[in-house]
């Protein structure tokens, strides 16, 4: 279980998280939605140990995030891989750090995502880089998979491939997946739970099916409705 307990974070004058209390259900896929500046990326960075709260605490499986980096697979929005590496070198590099790396799964995903090991990171397209990042994160049997805008700026076909990979690879009950995205309609069918953030606080959260049933609308419409009223 991942818990945020009274977490606040400020960058200069900008409040990113404002006394946030939130818990992510273990073994489920949670969609983390909200407009720009809502605190989605900051939340994921905090779980990965890349940011620290100014106040409050975050517990990942009962521990501080820094202590459980080896059980977290984090896929940031930006390109974070070394451009001089090819996919094989990047995979070899990641493999050295994680005992949960699964070489067989890596080979399967490589073929499934139509990637070639000899492709150099600096020479491939944005879509291929997004798939490479997913490949390196998903080739592990990590307890937590954090995806920050995995579909941002990606063409529709690549988006489908990424979604299919997530569906194919997800281990229900074993793995906790958090997807932060603006492309809600793309992941609508994928998420079990949803959290709508606004200005660093939870605006709405709950089970995706229940919310859809209660409000009689899709998650995209719920978000539009909620944030239209908020603004």
């Amino acid at each position, binding site marked *: 279980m991942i818990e945020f307990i009274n977490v606040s974070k400020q960058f200069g004058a900008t409040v990113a998280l404002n006394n946030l209390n939130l818990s992510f259900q273990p073994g489920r896929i949670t969609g983390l939605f909200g407009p720009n500046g809502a605190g989605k990326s900051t939340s994921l960075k905090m779980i990965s*140990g*890349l940011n*620290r709260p100014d106040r409050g605490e975050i517990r990942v499986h009962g521990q501080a995030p820094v202590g459980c980096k080896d059980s977290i697979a984090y896929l*940031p929005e930006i390109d*974070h891989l070394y451009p001089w590496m090819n996919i094989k070198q990047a995979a070899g590099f990641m493999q*050295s750090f*994680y005992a949960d790396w699964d070489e067989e799964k890596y080979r399967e995903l490589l073929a499934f995502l139509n990637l070639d090991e000899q492709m150099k990171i600096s020479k491939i397209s944005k879509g291929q880089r997004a798939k490479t990042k997913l490949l390196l994160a998903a080739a592990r049997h990590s307890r937590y998979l954090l995806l920050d805008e995995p579909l941002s700026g990606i063409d529709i076909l690549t988006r489908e491939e990424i979604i299919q990979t997530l569906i194919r690879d997800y281990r229900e009950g074993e793995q906790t997946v958090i997807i932060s995205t603006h492309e809600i309609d793309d992941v609508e069918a994928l998420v079990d739970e949803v959290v709508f953030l606004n200005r660093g606080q939870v605006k709405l959260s709950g089970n995706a099916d229940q919310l859809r049933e209660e409000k009689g609308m899709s998650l995209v419409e719920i978000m539009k409705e909620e944030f239209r009223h908020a603004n």
Partner: protein
Amino acid sequence: MQTNAWKKFAALYGKEMRELLPEISVVLGLVILITGIHYIKPGDYSQLIVLPYIMLAGLVVFLPFISSGRLSREWSSNTIYLMMSLPVKGGMLLGTKLLALLSQYLINSIVLVLAGMLLAFPELRTLDSAALNQLNELLAQGMGPMLLAYLLSIAGLSYMISLSFFSQLAGKLVPRFSKLFTVIIFIGTFGLVGHLIDLAVTPVLPQLGFDLAGPIRAAEHMELVNKFLAVNSLILIAAALLLLVLSSIVYNRRVEL
């Protein structure tokens, strides 16, 4: 479940060495060029080769320090996201960077010395046996100080690189004017550490046999030089370790994205 720490260390060290490969190659290329010119056109450019060779020696010494600025490049290229998400502490991360930069110095300096020997070889062949014996004697006497001077250069580089790491990481704690703060912290820490070393070492110098005010006899001279080089190396290694530990603490506890 965790992977072997050596495996992580080797992966990080390998990555650092791969990133330093272009710089190492440039130095090797220049060494080959200078040596090649000397052998292809012997006599024509003998005098002209001395200056580039000395400049190259300067480059070999300073290049690892200049390359230590690569730490900031992890931020500008966003690869810091990867580094910080890895299950490794700052000590290992910075330790591998330091080791790779020292390896760069070792490789380039050894190649430079070998090239120097190659350059000197044609001249040595013209010497008679008496002159060669004299040269051998000089080399035998100077070997100790030369090795200690080399150790001092490694210690000095370690200190400067650790200082560079510390100031870059401390500069990252200030989001605005990060580069300016890096420079200020570098100069400030350099001055402060120098002053602390002075304060700590000056009172014990006479106990170590350094009485610079008194007369120095020729027989004592070499011993004094050796001692001077060894003591300074140890002081610089201790200062480098201290700065590396401080840098690790800053990385582990303060740096965030």
